[in-house]
């Protein structure tokens, strides 16, 4: 019986030939993902381009045990995290540490730390429906993320880009755990409040 030709993994040279197909197949998805996560088309396009260039330059290290798409998304998430780390540190250098105090929280909670009337979540159950996909919610979220102060937006995005790894996020941003949790808390309170108002305005 003749020997079947041994199945060899595609070489890096083969992958270089395939690479343009990867670009054509995945640029759209990478761009859509990025546009939903950063402010500005130009910024998003730059990040996607840097992702592909980086993939091209490190193609020898692509083991082929994941799909090209998964690999490209992993690189993209790194680049997005880089983007947020850089902008966070630059903003901090300019403004000092302007993270203290938040006027909004004073309005949401009273002296005892209980919900103030008019801001209590109990009356908004109809806005945040879990059962059906709601385009208004998606749209409101996008607008509300853009309205967040930069440091709070970074806090939220980093949670997903670094897969909820608290230590890695604190290290990347150069802040303490307490400080980071506080920012996430503020961001969530603001997002909830903002989404509720936006959705009410869309009716």
């Amino acid at each position, binding site marked *: 019986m003749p020997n079947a030709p041994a199945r060899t993994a595609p070489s890096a040279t083969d992958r270089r030939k395939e690479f343009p197909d990867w670009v054509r197949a995945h640029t759209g998805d990478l761009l859509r993902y990025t546009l939903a996560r950063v402010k500005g088309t130009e910024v998003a396009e730059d990040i996607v381009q840097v992702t592909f260039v980086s993939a091209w330059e490190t193609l020898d290290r692509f083991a082929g045990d994941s799909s090209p798409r998964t690999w490209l998304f992993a690189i993209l998430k790194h680049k997005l995290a880089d983007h947020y780390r850089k902008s966070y540190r630059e903003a901090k250098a300019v403004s000092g540490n302007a993270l203290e105090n938040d006027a909004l929280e004073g309005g949401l909670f009273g002296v005892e730390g209980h919900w103030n009337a008019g801001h209590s979540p109990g009356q908004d159950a109809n806005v945040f429906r879990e059962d059906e996909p709601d385009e208004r*919610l998606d749209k409101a979220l996008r607008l509300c993320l853009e309205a967040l102060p930069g440091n709070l937006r970074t806090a939220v995005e980093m*949670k997903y880009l670094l897969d909820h790894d608290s230590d890695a996020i604190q290290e990347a941003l150069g802040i303490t755990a307490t400080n980071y949790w506080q920012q996430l808390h503020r961001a969530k309170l603001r997002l909830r409040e903002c989404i509720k108002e936006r959705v009410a305005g869309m009716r």
Partner: protein
Amino acid sequence: MALTDTLKLSCHKATALIERRELRPLGPAERLGLWMHLRICDHCRAFEKQSRVIETLLLRRSVVNVDSSALEARILTRIG
């Protein structure tokens, strides 16, 4: 957390714990305090649910109708 603090958890603190729980498990006293608070506070229970909806929305974010052909061409030139 002291026992008295556990018993009189404010909504401000409760919502902070709900958020922190996403990243790191709470300590036993914090867990108990939050559980007790949520039993008696409709608003924070609603907040907990709404927070979860926001997390789901954040995960599945994407945008539609994007023309990526110009970017594709630029990238292909870059690596060509």
